[in-house]
């Protein structure tokens, strides 16, 4: 019996009133217990997708299920499962830190005494206990981020969604936040994060999806994504039609059609071995061309967009 996914999105579309098409029909699933990254350049549609999942944005079409609860028919149950850490600070700057967290617990129906206990627990865990009585506006940027994480965790959600949680945070705080998120994930909470930092996704996440211009262009494991980034793909036109893929486990081969093969080769590795091994099976290569590596291109574009020149990768 397969486990219900933590998040299942099917053909999700969003067109804003001004006509901007933010999502063009994305479908993806996130398994329970996963640590999942949603990557993509600015304006790709990541925040819109998260907005729809957390019901802050109305979708145009498609379905979203959170632990099997459809947001169209079972929104209350779906919302109860989610904790959100948004990209922008969205708490009352004029409220004391502890009240912000305890109130959030209250919105989930947690009685005041228990809310106070949980507030204390998460303020301690995120190093904000000393600041509990201070106004939120008095916190530093990193502390405000941690405040939003504490607030998202106070009702102990099964799915924690973080929209660029470490943007603008220095490397030391970023790494301590990573450690904390690993602990939360190890405790069974499914985590989805969006990030610009490939390093962050590589360090934390087991699976990734990449969105660009409202379309899902990759949905794979982090390991495979990283392998792909270090590979070149060649398209081989072959002389004799093939019905099945030749049994050459030493090479990453795919049969595109009966006269076309694709092969992934690590950058710097010689390609001769592929020709030799195919020739030994009686398969003659008529021509070969390099297939553009769209993932790598995506990240080149991403870096160009941010103008970071490689920061964080």
């Amino acid at each position: 019996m397969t486990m219900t996914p933590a998040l299942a999105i099917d053909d999700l579309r969003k067109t804003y009133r001004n006509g901007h098409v933010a999502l063009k029909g994305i479908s993806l699933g996130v398994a329970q217990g996963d640590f999942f990254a949603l990557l993509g350049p600015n304006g790709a549609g990541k925040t819109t997708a998260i907005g729809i999942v957390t019901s802050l944005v109305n979708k145009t079409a498609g379905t979203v299920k959170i632990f099997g609860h459809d947001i169209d028919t079972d929104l209350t149950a779906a919302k109860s499962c989610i904790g959100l850490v948004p990209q922008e600070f969205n708490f009352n700057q004029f409220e004391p830190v502890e009240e912000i967290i305890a109130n959030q617990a209250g919105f989930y129906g947690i009685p005041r005494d228990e809310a106070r206990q949980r507030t204390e627990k998460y303020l301690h865990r995120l190093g904000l206990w000393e600041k509990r009585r201070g106004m939120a506006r008095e916190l530093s940027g990193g502390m405000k981020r941690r405040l939003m994480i504490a607030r998202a965790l106070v009702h102990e959600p099964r799915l924690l969604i973080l929209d660029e949680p470490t943007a603008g945070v220095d490397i030391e705080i970023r790494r301590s936040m990573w450690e904390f998120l690993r602990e939360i994930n190890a405790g069974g909470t499914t985590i989805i994060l969006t990030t610009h930092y490939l390093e962050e996704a590589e360090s934390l996440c087991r699976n990734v999806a990449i969105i660009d211009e409202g379309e899902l262009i990759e949905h794979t494991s982090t390991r495979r994504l990283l392998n792909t980034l270090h590979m070149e793909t060649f398209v081989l036109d072959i002389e004799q039609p093939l019905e099945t893929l030749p049994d050459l486990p030493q090479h990453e081969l795919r049969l595109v059609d009966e006269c076309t093969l694709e092969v992934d080769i690590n950058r710097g590795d010689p390609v001769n071995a592929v020709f030799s091994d195919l020739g030994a099976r009686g398969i003659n290569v008529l021509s070969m061309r390099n297939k553009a590596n769209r993932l790598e291109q995506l990240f080149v574009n991403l870096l160009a967009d941010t103008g970071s020149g490689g920061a964080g990768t």
Partner: protein
Amino acid sequence: MTPQQKLTAYRTIVTKEILRFARIWIQTVLPPMITTALYFIIFGNLIGSQIGDMDGVRYMEFIIPGLIMMAVITNSYANVVSSFFSSKFQRHIEEMLVSPVPNYVIVLGFISGGVARGITCGIAVTAVSLFFSPLNIHSLPVMLSMILLTAVLFSLAGLINAVFAKSFDDISIVPTFVLTPLTYLGGIFYSISMLPEFWQQVSLANPILYMINAFRYGFLGITDISLWASYGISLAFIAALYGISLWLLRTGKGIRS
């Protein structure tokens, strides 16, 4: 959510709202006390002594219910419009929108906050009035029920204004250009029987007139309007505005993209 959880969520919103205006009491509770004290001194004492009786009561006594009601109307409206719009502007309304708290609980929470401030200011103004005139109570149930209905009605109106508002200018337009004129023309300072027939009929289109008159009945036992009409108008407006508020939250107008 279970009923108990909804009650907890409701209490959280109400407590948050009350603490909000209580923290800034110098901006929220003190100004109506000072303003109405000036009204009592200028209109009640100085000018009122020249006017004599109005509908058989001293002019000072006549204006007290209207001035209390004016504080209730403006403060219940101002509380919800500013609180809800600020929560939109700073985006902390999202704290509630991502949670499973039902829309009607959000509406009731904000309304209760508005009612709390409106009635607090009403009590404060009543306390100020005691310096100028003894408190007459003709019908406590009418007085209390009408002040409550009025506070609820204008809290709902404030919520709807806040949902549509896109800037801080938008939350001051309605109070300045609609609420204040209607309140002043709602019979705070005069009985509509003093007006020519035509303007009496025009005045009947002003819903605030019905509330002020019913409230005055609770104090003095005099009114220009039937009590049933006052209750009917108030309840009809509350039902309509509550329905609109729920619809706005359900569809996400002004708060969801």
